């Protein structure tokens, strides 16, 4: 995976693809096709800077695969952006859309720039320049950008505006990640956290466990964690501990109440970054434990929804014997070594790629609504999300059960197979 000594995301993504391709016995032609993006655009964006000079920025858009539908993926503004990073990320987008079975392909874009060196006006000029270069190659039926690293809903609105100017009409479906009222969808804040619980609910069903008989420990208390807990409580579960980062003390803490936390109460003493006020929590009867205590709680369910590499070879042994399910709300919370140990212990894993796909599903809904220019109410969005997530879970889980493969591998198998099928059906390969 490492070439010339440094980590390369593209190499890693291809290696991962190859290992799954082996499992599904993919032929050489399909492999060669799927290992490489279908299209790449490399272009320059000249920008008149505030001081009157002209600076030229390099931009990319990679469309990895659009066999299942228009490409979908974010645009990153990053000073150390490389084409290989963008290629890898576009590939991951293809698999991610396929696993939840939404009719979209994978794409990603980026501009090499450091927004710390740019005024808002200059950033706007980059956004508009980016769209001008790509206006014929993207759009609601071709490729739909979204916000990513260092880009925000504001950037998306500038891009949408530029696209609409060029094409002379309203095309809100050309971009997602827009604010509600400007072509955005309701339910976006809830989508990822709720998605985690939809899959968890299905897993419990499979294992014939009543949600009301379960207790959970959640790592994190940000957006994903809060909405996951909200829905988990609604279906009858009890959360006994959450963790969060303390900005003042520069360390993480776990807040525990053995008979179950009160979500509304905790939200009342939490800042906008998910930091819980320690003193107030103590007053409310919460125990404050060290930050790594979330993993050794005697619970049925663990929901890591904060950081990467939280479950490691060192702490995986601390996990209670009682743990039956891990639902990965965060991206990459489990290290490969820990993953092996979890697999060996027979714990049911709902992999990140599946569990937190609520976000991309909601983006798809945004696109659909934008294209119709008709926007759903919240319950309609969440209802459709439930249907999508449930179906996705069931497909993966069935495969895993039938073939006795680990859930994480099953998810990749399902998604890569779907993409390969689409390519074949179209007669490409």
């Amino acid at each position: 995976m490492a070439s010339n000594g440094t980590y390369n995301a593209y190499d890693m993504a291809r290696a991962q693809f190859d290992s799954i391709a082996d499992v599904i016995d993919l032929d050489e032609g399909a492999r060669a096709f799927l290992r490489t993006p279908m299209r790449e655009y490399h272009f320059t964006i000249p920008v008149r800077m505030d001081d009157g000079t002209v600076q030229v920025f390099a931009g990319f858009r990679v469309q990895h695969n659009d066999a299942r539908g228009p490409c979908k993926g974010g645009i990153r503004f990053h000073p150390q952006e490389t084409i290989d990073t963008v290629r890898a990320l576009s590939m991951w987008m293809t698999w991610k859309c396929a696993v939840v079975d939404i009719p979209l392909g994978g794409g990603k874009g980026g501009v090499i720039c450091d927004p710390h060196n740019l005024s808002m006006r200059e950033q706007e000029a980059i956004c508009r320049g980016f769209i001008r270069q790509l206006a014929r190659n993207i759009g609601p039926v071709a490729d739909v950008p979204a916000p990513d690293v260092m880009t925000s809903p504001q950037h998306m609105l500038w891009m949408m505006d530029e696209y609409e100017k060029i094409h002379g009409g309203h095309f809100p479906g050309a971009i997602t990640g827009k604010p509600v009222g400007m072509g955005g969808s309701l339910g976006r804040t809830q989508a990822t956290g709720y998605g985690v619980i939809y899959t968890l609910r299905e897993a419990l069903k499979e294992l014939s466990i009543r949600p009301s008989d379960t207790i959970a420990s959640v790592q994190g208390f940000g957006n994903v964690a809060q909405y996951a807990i909200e829905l988990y409580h609604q279906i009858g579960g009890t959360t006994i501990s959450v963790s969060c980062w303390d900005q003042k003390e520069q360390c993480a803490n776990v807040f525990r109440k053995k008979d179950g936390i009160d979500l509304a109460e905790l939200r009342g003493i939490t800042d906008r970054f998910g930091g819980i006020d320690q003193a107030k929590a103590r007053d409310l009867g919460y125990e404050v434990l060290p930050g790594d205590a979330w993993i050794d709680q005697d619970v049925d369910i663990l929901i890591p929804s904060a950081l990467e590499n939280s479950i490691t070879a060192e702490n995986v042994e601390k996990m209670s014997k009682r743990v039956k399910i891990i639902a990965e709300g965060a991206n990459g919370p489990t290290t490969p070594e820990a993953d092996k140990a979890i697999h060996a212990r027979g714990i049911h894993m709902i992999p990140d790629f599946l569990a937190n796909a609520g976000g991309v599903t909601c983006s798809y809904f945004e696109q659909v609504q934008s294209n119709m220019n008709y926007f759903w109410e919240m319950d309609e969005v969440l209802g459709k999300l439930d249907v999508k997530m449930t179906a996705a879970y069931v497909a993966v889980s069935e495969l895993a059960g039938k073939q006795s493969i680990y859930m994480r591998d099953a998810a990749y198998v399902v998604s890569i197979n779907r993409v390969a099928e689409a390519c074949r059906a179209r007669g490409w390969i």
Partner: protein
Amino acid sequence: MPDELRTTPEGLMASLRERAKELNCLYHVEGALRKRETAPNEVYREVLEALPPGWQYSDICVARLTIEGKTLSSPGFEPSEWVLRADIMVQDTAVGTLEVFYTEKRPRENEGPFLRDEVRLINTIAGLIGHHILRQRLQSIQKDWETLQSQGGVSASEIWRSPLHLLRESDRGLYLRIAHKMLNYLCRIGVSGAQQMLTGETDSLDSEEEVIGEINVPACRFAQDPDYLMSDAPFELASKHLSQTEILGRVQSWMQEDKALGFLRILNNPRSPLPEIVDAMRRFQHGIPNKHILRSSTLKTLRVSLAQRLLTEQIDFVRIAKENMEIEDFYELTGRMVIPAGSHGRLGGKSAGMLLAHRILGRTVDAEQIVGDIKLPKTWYLPSDGILDFIGHNDLQEVIEQKFKETYEVRQEYPDIIRLFKNSTFPPRILNGLSVALDDFADSPLIVRSSSLLEDRLGTAFSGKYKSLFVANQGTKAERLEALADAIAEVYASTFGPDPIEYRRERGLLEFNEEMGIMIQEVVGMKVGKYFFPAFAGVAFSNSEFRWSPRIQREDGLARLVPGIGTRAVDRVADDYPVLLVPGKPNLRVNVAVDEIARYSPKWIDVINLESGTLETKSITDLLKDVGSGFPGFDKVFSLLEEGMLGKAPPRVMFDAEKHELVATFDGLAKTTQFIEHLNNILNILEERLGSPVDIEFAHDGTDFYLLQCRPQSQSDDSGPAPIPKDVDGSDIVFTADRYVSNGWIPDITNIVYVDPERYGRLGSREEMLSVARAVGKLNRLLPTKRFILLGPGRWGSRGDVKLGVSVTYADISNTAMLIEIAKKKGDYVPDLSFGTHFFQDLVESRIRYLPLYPDEEDVIFNERFLLGADNLLPGMVPDFAHLADVIRVIDVPANADGRLLRVLLNADLGEALALFVDPDEDSEQPQPVQKAVSHKPMQYWQWRLRMAERIAAALDPDRFGTVAIYVFGSTKNATAGPESDIDLLIHTRGTDAQDRELASWLEGWGRCLSEMNYLQTGYRTENLLDVHVITDEDIANQTSYASKIGAVTDAARELPLGKP
């Protein structure tokens, strides 16, 4: 009156009777003198008759009055030996005598037979008569004038006469001076005759020669004939050449000038205390309403003297004040001063800086347009020697010695001094003054600020070292006064704190007689509910040492803004962030992503709670729930965070604190007002006018901008970008960095102090972490100054949470050459660095370089193996802290790097820094950076000398003089030359005697020229700036004389390229 009489009722009655007699007498005398129509002789006779009844033995009392040659006496007058006498004075000239006699002997009293009260009585009466005479004279002049006018008989050429007579009679001294001025003036415009009048000589040509005289012989002194000047002659002469209007106009302006000079005399007398100066200024102010008639030189002199007496003695400051401050400005100031008795104090640096900056900005052309309307908060001043009064009043003189004690003693005793000061009382006069000030302030919240003489001087920033304290100023008058006095005492005590004393010691300012002026200032702000606070406040620097983008230049400046009171912008707080703005590049912000902006925005606000009377820190969210959109400057300060976007704050009426999430971004301020443009102009104008970069403090109440402080911002001058070599062997590198790199060059580092971030983080207790800070403080004193660098985790100087970084104060790191913060990942989290903000200015002042390291980033080298593998000197150097040896590593660089030293190269233009080992004899001169801006400072002495030495070498023709080589050594080569240092040259020659002589004379020419140039630049005279040592092959072979300098281990001579112009 015999004392024993006083004790009895009879005695008391007798005394009262005497008093009644005196008053009666005075009453009659005054009555007589007031009769205008009566002939003078009649008046005097009545006065004489009224006198005897006023005396104890009135039956034997007679009186005599001699006036202008005439003598009058009371009935039955006969002189005797028992007499009391008083001169009658008019305009300081005796015009007569008043005498009272007893015709018979009486018992002895205070003054012969006369009582003390009787002496006073006769003096009073003589004074009354004097005034009477003067009035008579003036009336008669007036009358003559009126008569002449009514008769229409005043010839045009005579109009001047009466007013001048009036002047002559009323003030002879002034008349003399004015007559003299008139003659001078006539001379100047070339009126013949005036010269003779002035010098008393008849032949003007001769006299001129006399005046010039010989050099070194004092010129003749000409006796002036006052009688001549007192005559009408000068003005008679004038009236022949000047119009009447001109004569009177000039006389009037000279009279005004004379008043100004009187004022100047008091000002320039170092003994005149402040109250006398203030009084003189008041008289001057009212006496000369129209200052324009004064000569500009007079006004300048006054302004200079006023600035020196009232503000500061700093010559640079006075020079600028002269051009920018008017006398009115000073006068206005005196109305709000609490002046200790006999004070000779000044207002101190902070006050002076604020006042001057305000005037400079106020006098800017189109000020309203360019810098906006700038206000000063209402301020009262307590001059600098108030502290001495306070110390004297409470017998606290011992504290003066504090500064000569060891730092640790100072630190130990400081809390006691605070207690002692706060339990002391103020001299009544100061207390009265403070009481008046409080009446003026009413119940506005106040801030008591230090304004010491040392504070704010160029090159010294006592930022935050002396205290500033808030006083809510609520309650009864007595309570408010007590709270105010208490705050002042505490600010006084801070003069004797360890940090300022350490700072002064380092800069050789201990011997300076520090005095502490006090500013009592209204807090800028608005009352909102029970709170009082401004919309926002902050500090701004005209030169930024903190640049996060290569597009930002030093000159673009930097502002730190916070909502509410500015303490959180001025002081550094660990858990919160001010908004940073670059006035010259307002569109480039430190934080760009929305969540980044939100996370690094101010979360807390300092406000005064008027109910509890305290300064409170509140969460902004909570405060907004309390005060809603009543927050002053609501839409300027806050942005609405909604749907991942930051937008304009909601309209006030639609604001819902429960629903809307607000972030303090100051976007509204930047987008909808001219604030940043004005701020940029303010900084530029002040920098230009004050001749150095500045920093200011300000506050804004939502409507008006208030300037709170202005002082020179120090800057380092070795800021050139160092070339970064590309061919360095990886094993020679200790670290590299590519973020937030400034410019500079740090040669010859012999020691590294490395606080291992991981092991520091693993320390078990706060106590242990604090002991790391103490150990660093001790190492700071033991290691060679500016020859070591400090590397440590996170935020150096962290106060609240010591886990964030080693909790040092400036005193603990003052000797380091460089402060390095290491941001090592914890999980996927990179800790925030302080960027040196805990002692931002101190680092700049002391030329301590700052550099952040991100060792986990790609393409960055961090040679942990060297840092952890080298021998640790800590246990040997500070045995008390030996137990911290695995946390703190003290490394001797040469001992661990084959005798090499460490050098750190910084290049902001490339955004690269490199620390590498170099051989000690490798050329350590800093490459000359390209001169970017015109430097305000004179070129450094050694640089000029080195350049000249190079010139000489280049110009020297080796063949002509038989020269082999030329070297420079000593202070020029070592970069330590001062203004009077000479240039040491070593010349290796194989020439003949004749050639040697020729060379010597060639060099002498150079030497003399250089001496002259040096004199012109520095004012230091030297005979010959070159100190030339000639050596031969033989010297070199034997290593005799200066030949040993060539290739020496220490201070080796450096060869210069010969004969290559």
